[in-house]
């Protein structure tokens, strides 16, 4: 996406910019985990120095800020009639340091939640957020170039590319332009534009993990079927723990639970993240389980990401971030398995 403007901001100026935003709004961004150095998470930044711009990835995607793992929907009382109160947060915040793959994840969820009947919860939280993207360098798990998200900019307001001594800041919305007015910036020169371009080139060159077929072909392969041996082989290793879904920036299946207040006069209904890999995901009362076999659940995950939602929304529900492969307790790698499927389909002719 062509930016509406490009500015340069130096490192010290950027820190002042962050402090200025923090004075009026919450800033949520990647920071190093205190309990696990070398691992990063999206959480509230207290000081500009908390921001970890060089982070490779986070365990959970920034989706958790917009649809929290346990989200309060409404509260109820046991009066007759019960009193119900919708829970909505209205306070604005800045979501900082979102990599292109994760921007694509947020965009994917924008489409899923807005699809009729549109739900108000996700969109209400999205309206609260000003998003500042940040370019990255891949690790061994990243495969964004295979799913076309390596240069994603939608839906960010500002986008930063690291250059010597600062950032090149692309403006992508009026909101972004307004926010950037808080910063001391200068116009971008040839040299800085070239540096940002070099960054992007290097990034794509360094990506090692790749799908062996284009997305459309993967959808066709999944639709044709005949892949049961590959599903069963993968399922032999899978523990059905659901880590892949939890770490995924585009998974949006959920459950709803009621919790009681300690005084037992009422309670709260929450929505919680759920996982299609868990044994009881498709089980109904009476014990009938519509996806009772592990391989059926493994197959479902691929079909949902690369076939059903791909056909429905014209994009894969996979951003190439590699989180599921990193999180997998038995090293099931999404790229390897997809390539096995592609190879199996080739053998079939």
């Amino acid at each position: 996406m062509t930016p509406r403007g490009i500015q340069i901001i130096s490192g010290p100026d950027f820190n002042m910019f962050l402090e200025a935003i923090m004075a009026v709004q919450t800033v949520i961004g990647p920071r190093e985990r205190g309990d696990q150095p070398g691992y990063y998470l999206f959480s509230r930044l207290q000081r500009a120095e908390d921001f970890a711009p060089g982070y490779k990835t986070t365990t959970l995607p920034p989706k958790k800020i917009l649809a929290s793992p346990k989200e309060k929907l409404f509260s109820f009382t046991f009066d007759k009639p019960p009193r119900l109160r919708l829970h909505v947060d209205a306070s604005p915040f800045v979501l900082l340091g979102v990599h292109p793959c994760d921007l694509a994840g947020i965009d994917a969820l924008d489409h899923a939640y807005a699809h009729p009947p549109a739900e108000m919860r996700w969109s209400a939280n999205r309206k609260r957020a000003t998003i500042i993207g940040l370019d990255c360098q891949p690790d061994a798990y990243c495969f964004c170039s295979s799913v076309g998200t390596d240069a994603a900019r939608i839906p960010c307001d500002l986008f930063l590319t690291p250059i010597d001594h600062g950032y090149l800041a692309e403006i992508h919305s009026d909101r972004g332009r307004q926010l950037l007015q808080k910063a001391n910036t200068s116009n971008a020169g040839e040299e800085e534009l070239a540096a940002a371009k070099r960054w992007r080139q290097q990034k794509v060159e360094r990506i090692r993990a790749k799908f062996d077929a284009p997305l459309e072909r993967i959808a066709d392969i999944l639709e044709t079927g005949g892949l049961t041996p590959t599903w069963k082989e993968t399922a032999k290793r899978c523990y059905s723990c659901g880590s892949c879904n939890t770490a995924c920036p585009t998974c949006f299946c959920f459950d709803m639970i009621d919790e009681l207040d300690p005084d037992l006069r009422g309670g709260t209904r929450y929505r919680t993240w759920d996982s299609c890999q868990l044994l009881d995901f498709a089980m109904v009362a009476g014990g009938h389980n519509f996806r009772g076999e592990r391989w059926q659940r493994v197959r479902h995950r691929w079909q949902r990401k690369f076939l059903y939602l791909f056909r429905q929304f014209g994009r894969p529900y996979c951003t190439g971030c590699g989180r599921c492969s990193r999180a997998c307790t038995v090293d099931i790698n999404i790229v390897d398995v997809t390539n096995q499927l592609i190879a199996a389909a080739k053998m079939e002719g």
Partner: protein
Amino acid sequence: MAAPDRQQAADISIISYMPERAKVISTHRESSATTIELVLEDGRPLHHSPGQFVQVSVFGYGEAPLSLCSSPTRSESFSICVQPKGNVSRAITALSSGDWVGIRGPYGQGFFPIDQMRRKNVLLVAGGIGIAPLRSLIHFICDKQKDYGRLQVVYGAKTPSTLLFQKETAQWVENPHLDFYLTVDQPDKTWQGRTGVVTEPLREMDLAPDNTIAAICGPPVMFRFVAMELLQKGLSGENIYFSLERRFKCGIGKCGHCQLNDLYVCRDGPVFRYSDLQTRKEAGEAWVPEKAQDAAKEEKR
């Protein structure tokens, strides 16, 4: 997409998952299920169509999808018929008049475009609690008698004591506009009616295959056998409708629980044409009787 001819419920636009309040005005307990009659707080009719469902909340317990078993032609209230199967359903069956629940819906696509059924014969096949959504349709058709051809109903239950709507079914037997076939799998000493599964009366029945629409609701194993029987009788897959059960959480195509291949049972169903299900692997897999699945597993070992 399946069922493109059925319009999405367009008026449920902005979803917050917070239900409306509704009051229990009567309950009727039978040995295997309880029928609960409800009104929305503001007394407004629910405006559902037969085959649609509501998400019923008992606060503190949770929410469960339940078919509407009353007809929209009798709009002063609406009813659900609930079997106690788990946490929420048990809490619902424990309700008494004057209690309050939460209602979201009506959701989903009901039984066939009712216009298409006009002047056709209608055959309904219910197994167990599957009678609930079909009862809505039976009332609907009985109330609009002139518009329809013959109405035939086959209803099977495990035992005589688990038969639902017993007062009403006694009337259906007498109703000259309705051919009613009642059967139980396991008769007791007092049972004088038919015994056997629902496909047995079907086999004897005389249908006009080109002018009949069939609707079926029951446990997963029933679907395959009933479908096979009806196809053999010459009905086309487009004229056979199934109401499916899956695990539901949201009821509006968001939470993913009810997915059946590319379909969401809550949003694109719960009522589907057999012809739309035939092409979908996950429908077929669910219809393999569990015993057969077990046998297949044994074989592999």
